[in-house]
Every structure is written in C-alpha cells, then in structure tokens.
C-alpha cells in the first residue's frame, strides 16, 4: 500500500464524491496519467519528486518503473483507496489538500522591476534552448523553423496585449498551441506562463481573462490531451506549485529568492520550464508597461 502525500482539491473531490473510474492514459518514470470515464478529463499520479499541481495526486513513491503499469489498465476507487488493477494501491486519506493560490499583483512594483532584470539574465544564461529560446546551433532545419515561428508568434501575442487589442488575441494564442518540441509543445508551455499572469488579481492584463477561458475550447484538438489539461487549468488560473512560488518570489521576494524559485521552474521537463518562464516574463513585462 502506497500513501498519497498531497492531492489537488478538485481531484480529491472527484475521487471521494464520484464513483471514480478510469483507464491509464500514459505512463512515465515519475508520473502516470489517468483518463476519467466520467468526463474524459486527465488526472495525474506523480511521484514525490514532482511538485503539487492541478489534477494531480502526489504519492509516496520514488519511481513508477517496475510497477508494470500499462496504457489501458483499469483504475478504480474502493474503500478510500485508488487502485490500478492489482498493481498499485494508494491510500487517499493521507493526502493533504492543495489548491493553487496565485498571489495578488502588487501596487508597489519596486521588487518586481528589480527582480525582473536578474531573472531575465538568468534565463538568458541558464534557460534551455530548442523551444522559444533559440539554440545557437539548431540540430535540424525543423528545430530552426520551429524556433523562428515560436519567436514570431509569441511576439505578435505580446504586442497584441501591449496594444490592449482584443480582436486577435485568440488567433495569436491559438497559433501557438501544439507548436514545438517535447510532450508539452513549447507554445503551450509559453501560454501556461502567460495565462497564469493574466489571472493574477489586480493584473493590468486581466481584461484577457475571459478570453483565456473561452479560447481554451478551440485549443483542444490542437494539442495532446496531457498538454491540453495543463493549458486548460492555466486558462482558469490553476498552475503547478513551482510556477506559483516563482510568481510570488518575483513579485514580493528578493533577487536570491526569485532565482531560487526560477531554478525550480527551469527544471520542469526539457525546455518546458524555460518556455513557461518566458511566458511568465512576457506577461509580467506587459503588466509593467500597462500598469506602470
């Protein structure tokens, strides 16, 4: 029996309040995804190396290797335990509840402006290329072309926000979905960061909040289900813990705290962390310009 360490409030509600059943959608070393029979939504079981996140239950395991869990294995809930066939039993009652709480955008932007300079330098130095951050020597023509399109489309979206125009926001945002390498394409990752900033309370970009929530339906067929789930949650202001902590640190913390939190974001996936960070920076820069 494995114990759940913490769980996203919504996921725990689904497990407890509904007769939750599903099938295994995909399996990785540190996470596995489950598709709910009830609403086709994707939920994640993550090992303790991962941070807390929307739709995610963090369990007390180091790895999912050697459990021999396969795609299409059945998932059910019985006696407060989440079961994957006979292969994994997880006690739910031990999970502490978690919900993403984004910080409030501050009236005093002194810390933010100071931290931004250092954070941007750090991303320049340590961010991973291959997605939005272009590699000096792309490994292929495909990579070079992808980076070019990502640059072009993220710039268009940023300028649209700066000009406070609403008409093309959805088109430019949609053009990014599914674009880029990795399991969660770079364009999706960028939008996750940007959407999170748009959802900050008192955010000068908050006029785009309803657009995020409406555009998400158009995005579903454009990317895979795993990435879409993350994007959908971000479109409603729900992001993983490390992103939330970074936003808090850059808005209210010191330079050192901001960099420390940034490192955890950059560590996400391969180039995903860098792409998310660039989305966050883009949103924050727009906030500074629009909000003064």
């Amino acid at each position, binding site marked *: 029996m494995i114990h759940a360490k913490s769980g996203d409030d919504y996921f725990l509600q689904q497990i407890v309040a509904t007769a939750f059943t599903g099938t295994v959608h995909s399996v990785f070393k540190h996470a596995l995804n489950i598709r709910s029979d009830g609403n086709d939504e994707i939920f994640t079981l993550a090992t303790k190396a991962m941070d807390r996140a929307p739709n995610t239950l963090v369990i007390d395991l180091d790895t999912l290797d*050697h459990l021999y869990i396969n795609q299409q294995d059945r998932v059910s809930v019985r006696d407060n335990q989440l079961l994957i066939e006979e292969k994994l039993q997880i006690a739910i009652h031990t999970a502490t509840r978690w919900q993403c709480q984004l910080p409030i955008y501050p009236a005093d932007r002194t810390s933010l402006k100071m931290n931004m300079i250092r954070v941007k330098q750090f991303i320049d*130095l340590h961010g991973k290329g291959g997605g939005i951050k272009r590699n000096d020597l792309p*490994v292929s023509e*495909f990579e070079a072309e992808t980076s070019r399109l990502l640059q072009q489309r993220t710039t268009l979206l940023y300028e649209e926000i700066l000009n406070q125009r609403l008409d093309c926001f959805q088109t430019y945002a949609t053009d990014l*979905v599914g674009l880029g390498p*990795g*399991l969660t*394409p770079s364009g999706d990752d960028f939008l996750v960061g940007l959407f999170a900033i748009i959802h900050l309370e008192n955010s000068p970009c908050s006029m785009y909040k309803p657009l995020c929530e409406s555009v998400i339906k158009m995005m579903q067929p454009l990317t895979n289900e795993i990435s879409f789930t993350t994007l959908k949650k971000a479109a409603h202001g729900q992001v993983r813990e490390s992103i939330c902590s970074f936003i808090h640190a850059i808005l209210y913390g010191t330079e*050192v705290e901001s960099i420390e939190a940034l490192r955890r974001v950059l560590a996400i996936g391969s180039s995903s962390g860098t792409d998310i960070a660039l989305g966050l920076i883009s949103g924050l820069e727009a906030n500074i310009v629009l909000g003064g």
Partner: protein
Amino acid sequence: MSIKVVIKRNTYFDSVSLMSLSTKANQIEGVEQAIIGMGTEMNKGVIRNVGLMTPEVEEATAGDLMIIVKTTSADQTESAYLAVEELLTNKDKAQAKSDIKYATIDSAAQGIPDANFAVISVNGAFAVREARKALENDLHVMLFSDNVSVEDEVELKTLAHEKGLLMMGPDCGTAIIGNTGLCFANAVRKGNIGIVAASGTGSQEVSVRIHDFGGGITQLIGTGGRDLSKEVGGMMMLDGIKALDADEATKVIVLVSKPPEASVEKKVLAQIKECSKPVVVYFIGGNEEAVVAAGGQFAKTSKEAALKAVLLAGIDEAGINKRALNIPLVEEVRAKLAPEQKYIRGLFCGGTLCDESMYLAMEKLDNIYSNIQKNPDFLLKDINVSQEHTFIDFGDDDFTNGKPHPMIDPSSRIERFLQEAKDPTVGVIVMDFVLGFGSHEDPVGVMLPAIIEAKQLAEKEGRHLEIIGYVLGTDLDTPNIDEQVTKLVNAGVTHASSSTNAGLLAREMVLKGENHE
C-alpha cells in the same frame, strides 16, 4: 533525398527523452534530418515548411508520435531509421536493465547469494535497521545515509568488527572496492596503493593524484566523517588499516582525514606501528612529529601524500611530472591586481578541497573566514556574506538542506560566484570542479556562462579578476578532463593541476611584500 516516416499511435515519451532522442537521431551517420515529435497540426505545419510533408504525416494526430528520417540517398534510409528505432528501444532497455529489484535487504541477499557487499542510501531513520540487516546477512556495508546517531554508529561498527566485515559510514560518500567506484569516486588505475579515508573529496583527490603520478589503487575504504571522533574511536579506520595490511595486492597504505581526536590519534598511530607496510598519513593540519615517531610518512598536502605513496609503491621518480607551481604566472597576476584587490574567495564543492586551500592560506595570511573554520572567531557570521579571505564549502549542511549536493548540481554556487566577482576587494576566486561517478555530467559547463559574465564585468570596470579552477578527475573519467580543462582555459580561467596547487596559487597571487615565496 529519401524520407522514411513512421507514426506511432497514442505513444507518449516525456519531454526530456523526446528532445534527447531527437538530438541523437540527428547525429546518426547518413541522417540529414530527423524529427521525433508529437503530431500536432502546428508541428505538421513546420514539417510542411521544411519540405518533409508526406501523406503519413498528414494523417498523424496530436496524440501520435511522429518519427521522420531524411537521408541523402535511398539506400541509407532503412538503416538510418533502424538506428533511430534502436535509440527508442534502448531507452526502454536502459530502464529495464535494473528490472530485478528487491524490496528488502533480506530478499536481495537471498536473490543474489554470491553478493558480499551492500550500498545503502535510505532515509536516516531507516538506515540503521537496513545496515544491521546487511551485516547480519554477512554483507560488507557502505552506508551513504547520514542522520544516524553516534550510538547507532558505534553499535553497527561493533557488530561489523565482530563479524570481520567493513562498516563504511554512516555518511560515507566515497569508496573504490575491487576497482569499482561507489557513490562519488573517480575512475583510477588499478595498482598497489590502498587508501583508508574519513574524508570524501580528500580521498578522491589523493586517488586522482596517485593516478596522475602513474600509480594505482587497490581499495579505497571510506570510514564516514565521524569515525575518528572520541565516541566512535576510529573503529573503521583501524579495521581498514588491518584489512589493507592483510591484503596481498596492497604495498602502501595512505590515510586521509582531518586530524583525529587525541585519544583516537594515539590508537591510529599505534596501529601504524604494528603495520607491516609503509603508511603515508595525510591528516589535514595534523602533527608531523607524532606521525614520524610512529613510523609513518607525514604529508602536509594531498599532492605530497600521493607523491610519497607512489614513490614508496615503486614508481620511478624520474618519470613523474610533479606539476610544479607556475611562479612566473604568480608574478604576472600580482602585477595585474590593484592594491585594493587583497582577498581570496574560495568557492568549493568538496569539503576537503576547501579545507586544504584554507589551511594553505592560513600559513601566510591572516583573517581567513569560512563556514567550516575550526576557530570559532573566524566562522562566518553570515554564511551568505564573505569577510576578508573567505573559503566556502558548499557541500556543508548549511547549503545542502533540501538541495542536491553541489557535486551533483554545482550551479548552486553560481549566485555566490557572481556576487564575489562584483566585489572590488576580491583579487582571486578559486573553485573546484569534481568529475567522476555520481558527479554532475558537465560541472565546468554549468559555471561557464557565469565565469564569462564575471570576466566581462571586471574588464568593463577596469579590474583584473583572477579565477583559478581545479578539475578533480582523471583521463578515464566521464566527462573527459581535457575537455573540461579546455573549457576553463578558453574562458580565461587559470587551470590548477591539483587541489594543492589551487590553494598555493590563490595564496601566492594575493600575497604582497615580504611574504612572497
């Protein structure tokens, strides 16, 4: 041009694997371009832009994995694709390699009846129980875990001693047993020198220098950092010396540690007297007279310890490159440093490497501060703020709480490095880069952008900033030591050829006036 496309339906790889596989696939001989990615509409659009669209690609959906291989000639396509497939398959095989996994020490001991050694790295709360089980199953133990009480350590070591087994640790991070490096260790030549060490990076440094001087290692036995305390009484070091004395392949023994507690030192020296083989003693900052009186060979530095050991082991002195200090370089740097650039800042991943540089500096300089200073007057008041000459061990608990050890992730010192580099009173920054099993795959690479930034900043401000880098490793280590050193040198860093030389160079470069060597 020839293109092969395979679409794998509903197939998901994590991003790290996908991008790494994609990079490797593009390096396969004959491959002009390879794409391994998800079949989203936008990615298909890019594929169209680069002229690789095919009907199969058109059919791919966002949940499918696309593999596209383009080669210059048709006869290469199939073999190139098979090589890409092999990359994907090997990724799975690599994961399956350690398929035999045991949930308990007991079941592992039953499952592998020939095993005689257990490496244990679990939470400290469970470490004692697991180590005891291993000893009860007649397994020698290397216990990497820390947070074990001294009482438990004594109990485990007593049990091991009674059973004639090694109990290496707790908190033992380095060993080489039967030519196999365990936890943090370097790839060194097999030879006739045995090491018993209570210091991780200290023993790594001595083993690497022995290799560099043409010698080799039989066994490197770690004891754990607390073994030479009064409470533990040096049980493992004493048993280690006896084991190497009895080992036919070992001709010379080297002991590496900080100075033991006085009563323990007596026991160790008594053991040296009884030993039938020459023993070189490198107790950092230790007492030469007592060692010599016991019949041991005293070494003041790690380099001296290695040199004495290889000479005793029969290596021809004439053939050894002793890597003398570059005195003209020292003079050159002194001339470049402004009068206010008086201080050294040592930023180390290895605790003993930090200690060695610090002790060398203390011989000629005053006011040496550190987070690991023995003298409480010179302990840093705030570990995040340097004072005069400062030597930081980033592997100390102060810095590693909840974070990976800097040997695993040296980037943890980047911030501090940039902070020190901005200080106009700093003349020399000295750093170590540790290669080998368990360490970061490119320790120099992760620091390089910061080094370049610091150099550029100093130049802009009209200062010379001297950065000394020491790469602890051998020509057998991965990554390649020459490549790491070249990266440093190309970035304008002065390469020190040993831990000892790094400490000496730093000290001599900031010395002014009469103290010049």
